[in-house]
């Protein structure tokens, strides 16, 4: 499965969510589908997209929050899964796109290529709703189920290690940041 195809399939739902992505292909591919003020791309601070998503979900308990994170980013901050499990915000969904690679810096294999099972880590960290979804249809179905479920959900998807050659967005990172804050806080542009 291509990560891009999975993102395209769930994009209609993502439009209605507060979305935080990790850096790399997941950020640029979501941006290429169409930027929205409810999307935030954490283009550095590797490992912290999930902590940000947790902070957002705890701060805005009435609004649905989705984290889109690559395997290498999550591997850098595995403790986040047990922190998420501990607080379990029901409005939070964490989608892990696992291409078994640090693709952006040149395609180095990540630890998931040698057997680390991030769905297993999530489950054993105490997260009850962990779904493996390795086809576009399965991702769509799992994400729809997560949206309906008043519980923290994790979706783990294996994707091909391919992505766009060009990683620069046509929008500045501070422009994204201030637009996102304004959107969340209900201010006018």
């Amino acid at each position: 499965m291509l990560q891009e195809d999975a993102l395209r399939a769930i994009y209609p739902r993502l439009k209605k969510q507060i979305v935080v992505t990790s850096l790399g292909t997941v950020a640029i591919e979501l941006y290429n589908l169409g930027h929205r003020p409810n999307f935030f791309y954490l283009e550095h601070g590797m490992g912290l997209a999930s902590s940000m998503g947790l902070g957002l979900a705890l701060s805005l308990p009435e609004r649905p929050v989705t984290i889109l994170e690559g395997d290498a980013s999550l591997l850098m901050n595995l403790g986040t899964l047990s922190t998420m499990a501990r607080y379990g915000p029901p409005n939070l969904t964490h989608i892990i796109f696992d291409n078994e690679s640090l693709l952006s810096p040149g395609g180095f294999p990540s630890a998931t290529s040698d057997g680390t099972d991030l769905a297993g880590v999530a489950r054993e960290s105490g997260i009850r709703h962990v779904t493996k979804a390795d086809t576009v249809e399965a991702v769509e179905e799992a994400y729809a189920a997560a949206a309906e479920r008043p519980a923290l959900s994790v979706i783990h998807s294996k994707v091909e290690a391919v992505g766009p050659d060009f990683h620069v967005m046509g929008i500045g990172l501070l422009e994204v940041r201030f637009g996102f804050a304004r959107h969340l806080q209900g201010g006018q542009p």
Partner: protein
Amino acid sequence: MPVSSVNSQIIYDALKDAGVSIISALPETWLVHLVGMADADPEVTLVRLNKEEEGVGISAGAHLAGRKSAMLMQNHGLLTSVNGIVSLAQLYRIPLLMLVSYRGEMGERDPWQTEGGLVTERVLDALGIMYRKMSDPALAARDIRQAQTLAESSLRPVALLLTRELMWEE
């Protein structure tokens, strides 16, 4: 335990007066009362962390959502948070109110704290983080109010170093 509960209460009340409603923390001896107060307070969301750097993400999410947060950590937690501070908070202009217990300074008996004490202020200087050492309980409320005001106006991290004189009674 000779951690000052009176001064911890003064600090906690000042955080509440400043409108802080999310506190992230990793337990540390000097912070034991502050963490307990946050845990017992239904108006505050306490997020107990596995590693202090997670707290940068928690505070970033809270700030963008319009909520005021604070981070409780030891100075070694500050050291372990440096990339998050630089590559999230400073890159994205996120205010952080960091309350840092200042171990390894004058009077420290634990040998393992001393290297961290040696470098704490120099690391803050290198990061361009404004900080103040808090030692007088009579000024604690002012120190917290002013630190938060600066963090919010500058959209940058600000640190308050909680000294032995403030936190420890012996």
